[in-house]
């Protein structure tokens, strides 16, 4: 239904030359995957899909595409888009936002842990309301949807974009479960400071500096990233844990007030570093200190580049 409407709308946008590009999802080459579809070709719109596996944050592509773009946006994507508009990286008038009311995206890693099989060994995954059925070895296993969605989806505050041009389905109301979503962070906070330090040392020791976390992040839009500065060199490019940690900490501070908790950094990490524990904590700190939620209002001033009389710190007054 949503998919049919999307294909029609996308096709019309290209035909009527209202956009130069369509950015959406098509079926991926592996089971239960989708892949970004970035196209100018009207015929390609037939391949657009909307399903429980549309993981990528497509807003990431906006800063590199030239021309007007029709973009498929879940709530989290729309927040990233709004954040990019706030930062003057993207012009609202160059976009046609095709809004997808999103029921949450399925985290295949959670299903793998629950059934003890790799994703390519599963025969089928289907969702019906609050139930997700997984078929494996001919047997059907049912799970509560809350057990198999991404952690960041559990905390979602905006399933349906509020900034859009075309709404593709019935709006969904947010039902955030912050406790379930933030369990990893709660567990971390229960450690002593020394234990936590040792844990992050361990986690950061695995980093291979592929920069997928940075490159997949719509909020990481710097044309020259500090890690690539060579004169002076801020961070050594070798993957040793102190430099890896510094990279993550600075990256996290740079995206404070821009990070919309889309969870992509953690999803794409090939060595399983729980990066969202850092970004979500920063998101909550930003909310607490500045009463600011990134990507909610395109007319709001970006948090880190403006100043208000009522600044919390005496220093700024």
């Amino acid at each position, binding site marked *: 239904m949503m998919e049919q409407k999307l294909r029609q709308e996308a096709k019309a946008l290209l035909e009527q030359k209202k956009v130069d590009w369509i950015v959406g999802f098509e079926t991926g080459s*592996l*089971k239960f995957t989708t892949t*970004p579809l970035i196209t100018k070709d009207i015929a390609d719109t037939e391949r657009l899909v909307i399903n429980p596996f549309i993981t990528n944050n497509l807003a990431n592509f906006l800063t590199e595409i030239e021309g007007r773009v029709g973009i498929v946006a879940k709530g989290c994507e729309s927040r990233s888009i709004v954040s990019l508009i706030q930062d003057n990286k993207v012009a609202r008038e160059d976009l046609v936002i095709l809004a997808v009311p999103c029921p949450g995206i399925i985290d295949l890693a959670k299903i793998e842990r629950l059934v003890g099989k*790799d994703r390519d060994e599963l025969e089928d995954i289907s969702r019906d309301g609050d139930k997700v059925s997984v078929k494996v070895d001919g047997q059907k296993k049912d799970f509560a949807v809350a057990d198999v969605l991404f952690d960041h989806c559990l905390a979602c505050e905006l399933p349906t974009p509020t900034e859009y041009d075309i709404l593709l389905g019935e709006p969904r109301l947010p039902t955030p479960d912050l406790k379930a979503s933030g369990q990893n962070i709660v567990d971390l906070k229960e450690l002593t400071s020394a234990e936590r330090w040792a844990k992050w040392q361990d986690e950061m020791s695995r980093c291979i*500096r592929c920069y*997928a976390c940075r490159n997949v992040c719509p909020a990481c839009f710097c044309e020259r990233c500090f890690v690539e500065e060579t004169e002076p060199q801020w961070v050594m490019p070798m993957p040793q844990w102190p430099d890896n940690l510094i990279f993550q900490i600075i990256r996290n501070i740079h995206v404070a007030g821009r990070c919309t908790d889309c969870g992509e950094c953690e*999803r794409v990490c090939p060595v399983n570093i729980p990066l969202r524990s850092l970004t979500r904590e920063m998101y909550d700190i930003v909310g607490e200190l500045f009463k600011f939620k990134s990507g909610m209002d395109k007319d709001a001033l970006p948090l880190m580049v403006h100043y208000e009389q009522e600044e919390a710190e005496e220093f700024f007054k």
Partner: protein
Amino acid sequence: MAKKISKKDIAQLLKTWSQQFTVLAPSRASGVAEMAEWDGKDTSFLDWYRNTTVPPKASFLPPMEEMFRFRKDEEGYRIEPPDKNGRKQLLFGIRPCDARAMAILDMTFEDAYKDPYYLEKRRNTVLVGMGCTNPCESCFCTSMGTSPTDPTNVDIMLIDIGDHFLVEAVTDKGKELITKTKDLKEAAKSDEAEAEKSKETSYNKVVRKLDTKGIKDKLRDSFDDEEFWEKTAAKCISCGICTLLCPTCYCFDINDETDKGEGTRFRSWDSCGFSAYTKMPMENPRSEKWRRVRQKVCHKYEFYPMAFDVIACTGCGRCIRLCPVNWDITQVIESVPDRVKGAK
């Protein structure tokens, strides 16, 4: 005549080998699947191991390694080589795709150059291969000159025959080690027949196929097709996953860590996909993303065949299953236009 060993006795076998070698085996203890120093007891990999996320090349070309130390005194700079560990290591359970990748890396690090860091580790290592029984959806080894049970590039090969492995010596190094290893039993004719069946079953489980016929020429003829490469690169995010975790990619960067006239020179993994690649000596000549994607594809499927007559891809599938955007090398290779035939 081949030998065999019960799966229950693998721990004992590794203990025996540990007396002589540093044994590396598949492990998830660090939080990611990789070849890690065996802990003396864990053989749970026999249940979960399909392939490691970090390729075994990391045991020969580590993510970072010390090249030498230097310090300055009145007479000038003094160079000290790194401590030679000289240890003999045994890599247990390497998959045929990754073993082939080592043979492909040898062409650069041994045939074209003599890389002392790489070669020392390579010469001191015994490779014990383990055939796959459960290839991944992303695997396409049978299209890339190898197979799930190919013994070609290892010293000793293990083939799964149910509750046992059939153990075959492949090289002289392997034969010598097997002769000295008392934990192995003689295999029966029926075990060898079972192994043949197992090989065929595994082979047929690799369903992803890639036709690479004429690819070198097709890529050469498409080198200037900017439109094709822009389309191919559109969704790539220029991260380093597909290159750093590729078993045949070997680019490295060199950096000095210095402090008051003394320091250490390191080399570490680098990727042609990065926009800052080769920025240290000059600039990256491939500033647009499509040029970097083209480089990655052509290095594997055109330049390596030109230099060494072999495609630098073994079909291990890591780049497909780990890619954040599902950029699929097999789809890309299949989409390269065939200009001779006029097909587009």
